[in-house]
């Protein structure tokens, strides 16, 4: 009846699994054991004082006032004051300790989750929306803070209160207690039903929180396209739909918990009614005194108060379990690209061998690359050319082990990349991606991305090496210029320059460039290419080329088409190939070239 729409069957959390999720969370929280233990101690102390306080009132009235005993009254007042002060101190300490334990746990969770997300290969990011991943790291974790801040506290104090109340009740009159507790099955059944329907409902909420955030993220990332396309109103409508879907999911959880809390409250009052009823009967028969009935009824109230608190806690716990479950789903995704036991460092130099490689992107029909074999000598420069979608970028990504081949292998210096340590892999092989993505921070921060320990001088000399130092030092703040969101402070070309300088700083053996220079104007590009020329000396270079000048500077050219490496050779060899693909390509290039400028021709 309250089953959430849209949560599919294998996404459900049955009780056994929910218990597993929580046990796992508890293991994660192990580091906080001592703090949490101390916190529990103080919570218990504060709770106990709250229990004892009213006893002093009773003592004051019964022993002091009724018996006209002034000193008993004063003892009661003094005792109460003392206990209240104790409670005050306990609860002061408990706030700090509970926070320390709870936030410690959340911090642990943040670090683990982020580290794990970062270990994932690109395929994972193709499958998961950025907004959803952000939601897991932020909204989901924050949604648990309520539980870790108050949950432990409530659980302990409610536990103590219930135990104490039950014990006293049984002593007072076990018959009356048992009769009153006849309502217990109602609470249990309600809790079980609540658990079932709320699991789905809360999972649904987490799901839609993620979707909603990813809509927001998409809209913010695409804000310029949206505005340029005069689409703001349409995108607002779409957001409204996803936002209202989230509201509906929230309302499902509200409906589910609403009846549950109602039933628990009703049960508490019913217990009182039962006790009065049975009490009347037992008093008639003379087996209990009126005073006992009064005491039992009063205690029942203090028994059901914490029971209601526990049901609140249960609700919070259900929501947290859904969050945890979503996070553990991520933690359980083994990274496709990983370091296994016994990995070795890549040699500082060596031939790059692509051996019979086949690769398809998950979910796509045709392989993006098949039967690819290629031997690239150390220090050789290879240009990849071919039509759009031919597999050039794919080969470049495989060479840098951003993906692993489905079949065949890629090795450097005789070591299969899959057997190499990731640290040495990223040190030896660097990819300059198509987009010069910049992070918030200064230009210097962005340059240091791959080698955080570099000094300012290192940065300047790297910029010098590619001949773009003045581009950046001429800025009013020089390398300390804040690049702002996504580097919006810089032009597209300048962003590319930063990207190239990053690579220069790492000093890798193998450089993979994917159209890195496509956004530079010819003047700047010449500058950069001249510097790269020096930088690339003695390095292996694989470049996805779209420019004849780049192709011409390569030692060998690899022509891709339809996921195959159809021609491999030098410019002259391939140009001479009758009916060759490269010959056709070069001809197309030629025709797009402007007529040779007369002034420079002479």
């Amino acid at each position, binding site marked *: 009846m309250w089953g959430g729409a849209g949560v599919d069957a294998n996404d459900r959390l049955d009780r056994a699994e929910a218990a597993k999720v929580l046990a796992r969370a508890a293991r994660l929280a192990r580091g906080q054991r001592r703090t949490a233990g101390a916190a529990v101690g103080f919570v218990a102390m504060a709770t106990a004082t709250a229990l004892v306080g009213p006893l002093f009132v009773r003592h004051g009235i019964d022993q002091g006032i009724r018996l006209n005993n002034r000193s008993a009254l004063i003892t009661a007042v003094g005792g109460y004051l003392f206990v209240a002060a104790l409670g005050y101190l306990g609860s002061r300490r408990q706030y700090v300790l509970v926070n320390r334990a709870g936030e410690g746990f959340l911090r642990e969770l943040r670090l683990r989750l982020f580290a794990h997300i970062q270990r994932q290969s690109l395929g994972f990011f193709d499958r998961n929306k950025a907004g959803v991943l952000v939601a897991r790291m932020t909204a989901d974790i924050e949604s648990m803070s309520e539980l870790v801040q108050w949950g432990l506290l409530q659980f302990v104090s409610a536990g103590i209160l219930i135990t104490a109340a039950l014990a006293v009740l049984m002593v007072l009159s076990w018959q009356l207690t048992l009769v009153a507790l006849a309502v217990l099955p109602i609470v249990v059944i309600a809790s079980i039903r609540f658990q079932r329907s709320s699991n789905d409902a809360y999972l649904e909420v987490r799901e839609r929180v993620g979707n909603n955030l990813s809509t927001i993220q998409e809209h913010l990332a695409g804000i310029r396209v949206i505005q340029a396309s005069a689409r703001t109103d349409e995108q607002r409508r779409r957001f409204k739909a996803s936002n209202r879907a989230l509201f509906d999911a929230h309302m499902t959880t509200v409906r589910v918990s609403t009846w549950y809390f109602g039933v628990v409250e009703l049960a508490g009052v019913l217990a009182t009614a039962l006790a009065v009823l049975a*009490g009347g009967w037992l008093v008639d028969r003379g087996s209990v005194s009126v005073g006992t009935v009064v005491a039992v009824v009063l205690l029942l109230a203090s028994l059901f108060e914490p029971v209601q608190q526990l049901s609140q806690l249960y609700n919070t716990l259900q929501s947290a379990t859904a969050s945890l479950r979503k996070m553990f789903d991520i933690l359980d995704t083994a990274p496709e690209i990983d370091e296994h036991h016994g990995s070795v460092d890549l040699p500082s130099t060596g031939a790059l061998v692509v051996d019979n490689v086949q690769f398809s992107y998950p979910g796509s029909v045709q392989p993006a690359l098949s039967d690819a074999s290629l031997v690239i000598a150390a220090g050789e420069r290879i240009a990849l050319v071919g039509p759009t979608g031919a597999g050039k970028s794919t080969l470049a990504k495989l060479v840098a082990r951003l993906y692993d081949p489905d079949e065949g292998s890629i090795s450097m210096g005789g070591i299969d990349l899959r057997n190499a340590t990731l640290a040495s892999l990223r040190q030896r092989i660097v990819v300059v991606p198509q987009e010069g993505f910049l992070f918030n921070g200064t230009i210097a921060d962005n340059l240091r991305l791959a080698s955080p320990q570099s000094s300012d001088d290192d940065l300047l000399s790297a910029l010098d090496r590619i001949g773009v130092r003045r581009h950046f030092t001429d800025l009013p703040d020089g390398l300390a210029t804040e690049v702002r969101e996504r580097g919006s402070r810089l032009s597209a070309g300048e962003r590319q320059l930063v990207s190239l300088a990053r690579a220069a700083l790492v000093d890798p053996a193998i450089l993979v460039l994917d159209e890195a220079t496509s956004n530079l104007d010819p003047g700047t590009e010449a500058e950069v290419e001249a510097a790269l020329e020096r930088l690339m000396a003695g390095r292996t270079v694989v470049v996805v080329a779209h420019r004849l000048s780049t192709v011409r500077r390569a030692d060998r050219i690899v022509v891709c088409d339809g996921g195959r490496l159809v021609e491999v050779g030098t410019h002259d060899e391939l140009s001479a190939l009758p009916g060759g693909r490269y010959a056709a390509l070069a001809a197309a290039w030629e025709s797009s070239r402007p007529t040779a400028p007369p002034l420079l021709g002479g």
Partner: protein
Amino acid sequence: MSDAAPERGSVRSLRDTDWSHLVSLLRDRRRGLSIGVALGLAWTLGKIAVPLLTQSAIDHSINGDGSVLAWSAAIAAAGVVTGSFTAARRHIAFRESRMVETLMRERIHDHVLGLHPAYHDHAQTGQLMSRMSADLNQVQMFVVMIPLTLSHVALILGVAVTLVVLDPWLAIVALAPLPFVNVTAKRFSNAIHPAVLAVQSEQAQLSAVVEESIAGVRVVKGFGAERVRMEALSTEADDIQKVSLRAAVIRARFLPLMELLPALGLIGVLGIGGLRVLDGAMTVGELVAFNFFVTLLVWPLRSIGMTVAFAQRAAAALERVHEVLSVDPAIVDPQHPQRLPAGASVGAVAFRSVRFGYGDGDAAVLDGFDLNIAAGESVALVGATGSGKSTIARLLLRFYDPEAGAIEIDGIDLRDLRVDDVRRAVGIVFEETLLFNDSVAANIAFASPSVDPDADRDAIVVAASLAGADDFIRSLPAGYDTVLGERGYSLSGGQRQRIAIARAVLADPRVLILDDATSAVDPSKEHEIRSALSTVMDGRTTIVIAHRPGTIAMADRVALIDGGQVADAGTHDELLARSARYREVLAALVPSNDVVVGGDR
């Protein structure tokens, strides 16, 4: 002004917070909220009725008059009533608070979507996402407490009056701590505000780090920058922990005190009331009744303490939300918008002595920039990196307004046109291609409001064919219905760019801007696309920003951008002949071409 003044200014409390956005929403939801308050009150009364009923039941019936069944039934009935009230109260409180949260999120989203690009140059996506999630969460948690708190306040007032009626002197003793609770609450609120603000701001910073690291994952992987990003994240995680502990310490200083104070009243009543009974000024029964009413105060007072704490977080969150909502959009429709003239020959563009810089002390990118483009003419902008070519495109889209001078389309200043009209008149293919998480067809129709991605398939296919995209789209798993991955990553660079070109082609704008639009397209295809584009460009005003000579040659005229102005303009050949700077900018390609030419010979 004293030395303390600036500090006090930065430490803001509940009272200084701008609650207007919340209040206006609450006003809209006042019906539900008042029902919530009424239900809360009814529930509280029920809560009081149950013990009173029980007491009477015991007093009247257990002594054997046989009415025990009736009394028990009455108690059970009261249980049904309070149970239903609990349910209804919760339902309404949560519905209203979630609704307020939802509406507020829409308000922020809609507002931010309409803000000028200059704002977005500075605003971090992750930060804005945090405004719309974590911060609104705090607001929701506060709003949900409003009905119950209001009914608690009513209860406290009711009890206070009862106490005064019962015994004015003892009432003073019992209520004496209340002013202290009030003062403590105020001091607490002042002390915790900056701490809570800090917690939320740290959370938002963490969100920004996460968002960036994921959006830029290709760079992170390519450079092996996981460690650097991890460090950035753990700094933020540590910061959160630190400031949250600071907040907890403040809470520990005040909240237990606020719980202790009502208990002091209770103790005072016991002591002083007891003495009065002993002195014979009061009966035991009166004292017990009095005591019962004082106990009724304990929970509501405690919960008001909690509400103050929640209100504090909500205030901090609202302050941050307000920061976003109070930014006025800089690019807005004029009061009396003009219409672009219709006709056969439209699309004339004029830049008149335009000066523009990105602000905050940055040097002007364009200064005294003049350029006239006749209707139907195509112009290539050529210049070094950072010379301002893309800036010109952004100004024409009215992403920014010039500081001086004017930009006109068909003789009308952009500022006299509706913003949407400008953007429909000007179509652009950006340097970086961004695709949306939707079908290929919807992505192509993105800039064409009149084209339905499902119904008008033919028009979409024509546009795709012109952009050279039809072939590969048909080979996708679901053809034009294939849903593209987030940001369109599952296509190759060239494929993405062609979809963006198809998008601009379909939009059929008066002025088409191609900003480096064919850079990722391979040369063999570029040739094809170029001939397709020339069909599109035919008779349409086009601005081409390109680095490849072949693309430059597509344009009727070339404008050389240098020093923030048009340094020279003319045909490609004219400029080659007379402009040294133009040759300089183009020079780079020539030697390598020579080699090619030489090799061919």
